[in-house]
């Protein structure tokens, strides 16, 4: 076997320029895939992180039917204490769940005592919310003299920046929130504008924030009720697995009408960015397909030429008794070796490129957050997959020329001019 590869290597070096050009082409394809996967993957991870860590959370549980009617923010699809306890039990018993937080979503009228407008509000328990969405504060602007680390106190409201601009409100200004509860009765309370929040992608990114206790008072809830339970996991990569587990546990909880009580959704079902994430994945796959085409065409071309140029040599091999299978293996080894050398070079250059991109980081701005840095990484599995596919395609592309070589009649091949 070693001898076969030794002969294959020498035959590759025999046509140095052709081998180098083909190898460069394949190497470029691999480098392109590694860099693109690294950058696109890093961008995707960062954006998903921004969305899940500063706003949505990784998973959400609602009363069944809430998500389909969430645009109207219905207040009749709430989880009472008993139901919340059930969810709490399930989530507390799951070791993959890091934290969870209750939320109430509501529509209200916001007044600056001159003008009135409507506002969507996310009522949170700040201590729990910060554990579920650790970056939520990064989107907010507070008064300069505000004590660090305090997200929201009772009596305070944080509103979207466009709304603040439109209503000419500044941090510290008094405002009034008026809301209907689920029975239709109206209530109004005074608040202080504690902060301004930037928008992120999706309808949920245009919401203001208030304390959950204030929301219950504004909505005149006799008992603590919750509309949404936001969840964060220890390991984001286990999202789908944990979703399946919790989902099956929740499916077992049936209401009096015999229907499922709760629904659970992962972030991608709640944010339009998931479509962008799918597009990124699709583009990465496209890049891989382009790479496969490059490898296939280059190696097929080079090996066909190699066979054509060495017909007499193949005739000699065959005449002196080399078996057709061994002739085939000689050419397969040549194609495989060309793929292997290009893969090694491509991986080294690709990883070097990723390393350089991590030194001279690419920065971009997203909303209020400037200087977000892309730190591309390449998963070992991804690297092995790319390398494996190149080697496989190299062998596949060589099959036809190698088979052709092995089937040559020695008498014809020896007479080839």
């Amino acid at each position, binding site marked *: 076997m070693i001898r076969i590869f030794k002969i294959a290597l020498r035959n590759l*070096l025999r046509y140095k320029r052709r081998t180098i050009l083909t190898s460069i082409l394949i190497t470029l394809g691999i480098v392109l895939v590694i860099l693109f996967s690294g950058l696109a993957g890093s961008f995707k991870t960062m954006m998903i992180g921004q969305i899940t860590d500063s706003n949505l959370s990784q998973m959400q549980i609602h009363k069944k039917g809430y998500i389909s009617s969430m645009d109207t923010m219905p207040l009749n699809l709430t989880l009472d204490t008993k139901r919340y306890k059930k969810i709490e039990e399930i989530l507390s018993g799951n070791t993959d769940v890091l934290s969870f937080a209750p939320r109430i979503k509501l529509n209200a009228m916001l007044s600056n005592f001159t003008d009135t407008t409507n506002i969507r509000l996310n009522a949170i328990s700040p201590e729990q919310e910060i554990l579920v969405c650790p970056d939520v504060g990064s989107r907010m602007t507070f008064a300069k003299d505000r004590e660090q680390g305090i997200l929201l106190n009772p009596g305070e409201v944080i509103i979207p920046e466009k709304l603040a601009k439109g209503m000419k409100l500044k941090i510290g200004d008094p405002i009034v929130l008026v809301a209907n509860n689920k029975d239709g009765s109206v209530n109004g309370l005074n608040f202080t504008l504690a902060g301004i929040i930037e928008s992120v992608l999706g309808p949920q990114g245009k919401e203001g924030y208030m304390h959950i206790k204030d929301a219950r008072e504004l909505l005149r809830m006799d008992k603590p009720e919750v509309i949404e339970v936001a969840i964060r996991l220890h390991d984001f990569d286990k999202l789908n697995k944990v979703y399946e587990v919790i989902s099956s546990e929740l499916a077992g909880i049936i209401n009096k009408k015999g229907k499922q009580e709760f629904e659970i959704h992962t972030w991608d079902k709640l944010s339009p960015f998931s479509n962008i994430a799918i597009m990124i994945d699709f583009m990465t796959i496209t890049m891989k397909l382009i790479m496969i085409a490059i490898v296939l065409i280059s190696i097929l071309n080079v090996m066909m030429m190699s066979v054509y140029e060495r017909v007499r040599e193949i005739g*000699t091999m065959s*005449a*002196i*008794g*080399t078996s057709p*299978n061994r002739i085939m293996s000689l050419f397969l080894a040549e194609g495989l070796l060309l793929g292997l050398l290009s893969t090694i070079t491509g991986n080294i250059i690709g990883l070097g490129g990723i390393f350089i991109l991590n030194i001279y980081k690419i920065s971009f701005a997203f909303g209020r957050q400037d200087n977000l840095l892309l730190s591309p990484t390449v998963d070992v599995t991804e690297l092995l997959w790319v390398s494996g596919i190149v080697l496989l395609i190299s062998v596949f592309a060589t099959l036809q020329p190698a088979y052709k070589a092995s089937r040559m009649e020695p008498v014809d091949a*020896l007479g080839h001019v």
Partner: protein
Amino acid sequence: MALVQIENVSKIYQTGDVEVAALSDINLSIEKSSFVSFVGPSGSGKTTMLNMIGCLDMPTTGKILVDGKQVDTLNRQKKAAFRGDVIGFIFQSFNLFPVLTAYENIEYPLVMIKNKPARQRKEIILNVLDSVGMLSQKDKFPDQLSGGQKQRVAVARALVTQPKLVMADEPTANLDKESSINVIRLMRDMKDKFGTTFIFSTHDPRIMEEAEITHTLVDGKLA
């Protein structure tokens, strides 16, 4: 029993609608350890005859037995294995592998065909290299050797597996006079040393003189 037995062999090539008889009704036997030449003008059927005996080509009619085996009925794989076991080849254009040194060219049949272990190979190769007078040139690639030297390496490659029969189609056609005589004498020495049967074709009268038995072909028939 004769090493090569040819019975009523004809070979007809089809060129478009025209049939060309390269060999017509040949009957011949060649004994072991003989030094046989086929001579005749261009197109007389020398190469076709050697290709038939060397199991590189199939007769249209007739039967060929080499070393007691009817070779015209073997399939591609078995024919290759038979050639590797029984027949060695020397070609007009030397046909050495350009990416292998003289040593490696001779080693090739032992590794790729005979699967001989490395320890056994070295001794055999050095012996045969010494026999053809190429020991000092063993690490040179074919393009660093003269025509005569290349053909000596080719002779060594043909003999390294100790075949019963060596086929040489115009082995001196690309050599100068002196090298031609040297190569033919080398082949005869090897025949004497290893007891190998050599069958070669030529149209050079001085080379014909070196053969023990000469068969003349004219228009595909034995004269």
